[in-house]
């Protein structure tokens, strides 16, 4: 029952978003209508270039969520592969992998992102690369620990005794048990990565104009903080909403899997 409601509301939101975004062009500037108050045509008003705020918000949301999903999928996959190998399939790699992850975790992510952006030019690609380079280590470590724990359990040992090859055991026994934990972490990370993307777009690296992004919109809007605080408020609100959403998602998942 609840699942159906969830799907329906998700679809509804998507439809509404699509309709709204296609109605008003998020890129259309209209200097004669700058910083307008909310009206029927522009439900949340316009920004300093006359662009519709709402459609930009929604588009930014889509871009941000899409990007973070990509990042998380990439890093989680790398993490799962490396973690399973170093934790179970080929233990000899463990020392190297642990040392590398330990060292990388300590390194500042923002610094790396800045430098990468400087080298490759500020763009979505450099942002994705930077965040992926940082996050892969935490997944590797997580999976490594989980796999290690799981490998001591009865069903895995039984499979070993029965002669099943390590990779097959990993696929059939270890990973399914480990998946719930990983999914929970992924859901939490969704929020974190969205935050990172917003922060980087705020300082100018990452999603470039004219593509809208919440952080970028805040950065543009803060010059008008005194007169039009709404320009900053709405993107900020979206960010906070996303954080809450991601936390609730991870709580729901935790409860569902009873992790």
């Amino acid at each position, binding site marked *: 029952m609840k699942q159906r409601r969830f799907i329906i509301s998700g679809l509804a939101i998507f439809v509404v978003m699509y309709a709204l975004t296609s109605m008003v062009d998020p890129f259309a500037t209209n200097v004669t209508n700058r910083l307008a108050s909310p009206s029927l045509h522009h439900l949340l008003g316009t920004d300093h270039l006359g662009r519709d705020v709402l459609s930009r918000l929604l588009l930014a949301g889509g871009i941000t969520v899409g990007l973070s999903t990509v990042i998380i999928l990439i890093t989680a996959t790398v993490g799962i592969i490396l973690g399973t190998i170093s934790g179970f399939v080929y233990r000899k790699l463990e020392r190297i992998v642990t040392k590398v992850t330990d*060292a990388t*975790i*300590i*390194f*500042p*992510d*923002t*610094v790396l992102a*800045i*430098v*990468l*952006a*400087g*080298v*490759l*030019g*500020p763009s979505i690609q450099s942002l994705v690369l930077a965040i992926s380079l940082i996050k892969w280590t935490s997944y590797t470590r997580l999976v490594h620990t989980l796999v290690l724990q799981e490998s001591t359990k009865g069903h895995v040992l039984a499979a070993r005794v029965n002669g099943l090859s390590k990779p097959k055991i990993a696929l059939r026994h270890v990973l399914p048990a480990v998946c719930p934990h990983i999914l929970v972490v992924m859901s939490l990370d969704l*929020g974190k990565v969205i*935050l990172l993307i*917003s*922060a980087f777009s*705020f*300082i*100018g*690296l990452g999603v470039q104009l004219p593509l809208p992004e919440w*952080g970028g919109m*805040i*950065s543009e809007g*803060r010059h008008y*903080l*005194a007169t039009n*605080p709404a320009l*900053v408020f709405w993107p*900020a609100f979206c*960010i*906070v909403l996303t*954080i809450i959403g991601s*936390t609730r998602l991870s709580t729901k998942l935790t409860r569902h899997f009873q992790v």
Partner: protein
Amino acid sequence: MTRFVARKSLEWGLAFLVFTFFSFLLLRLVPGDPVLYLLKVDELQVDVAEIDRLREELGFTDPVWVQYVNWLSEIVRLNLGDSLITGQPVTQLFKNNYAATFELAAGGLLVAIVLAVPLGTISAFRPMSVFSKLATGLSIVGSSVPSFLIGLFLMYVFAVSLQWFPVMGRNGWDSLVLPSLTLGIAVGGVYIRLIRSTLLDVMAADYVVIAKVRGIRSKKLLTRYIARAALPPVISMFGVSVASLMGGVVVLEVLFAYPGVGKLMVDSVLRRDFPVLQGYLVFTTCLVVSINLVTNVMLRLLQPHLYRKDVSR
């Protein structure tokens, strides 16, 4: 003990070399010919012979590791190259700007300590009090809300609306208040929770209760038993959180237009000033490595029982 320090220094030294090697490689990552790029900045018409000569002069024809060693020797002599834009030595640029960053980081850390230690401690000892609730709220805000949002909020309330503090820039002490407060809340949020849970764990530990029953006095109990047991997780966390601290400083420098190293970096990105960026990477690596070395040593001092050779862990 000395052996421990030596071993750890070696490990971190190795890490330093690895990191700097990567940052060195980064210049080579630039799409296209680095030499052409360097020359393009001047926007002169140069003929091929000139390009080749420059290429050899700058050492780009040497094998990679030779270039790396040369570069490393320059680094050690604190020669980080010159800015592509201004021509100033990178170290000079840093010198001009580090004061602001240092102020911001120090201010933020101070606020974080002043917030986290008392609030975390009180909420462990008096879980029902007003302070405890304040601590919980602050820790949720600090750890979930991104620092630039906290900063914006504070900016709007205290600078724009109430006009108690300047909105941006660096003009005296009151410019430092809002940025430090922001950073402090963002960093402190995590620590409040950590301190509280660590203290709760420690206070409930058998050996603390029994020490009390054996008559160990409160003051001694507090310092020798409780504080010493509670410190290691906090110190560990600090080593890890240096990264987010540095990130936070950069973002806040942009937000509050505080002219520090972070802001310099962002500008350098937009202007594609590679030597500055590389210098920043080297500098950051140094900082991270030394801080972690120090935390390693501190942990060793606080937890000698974990480092006994014949202990099976």
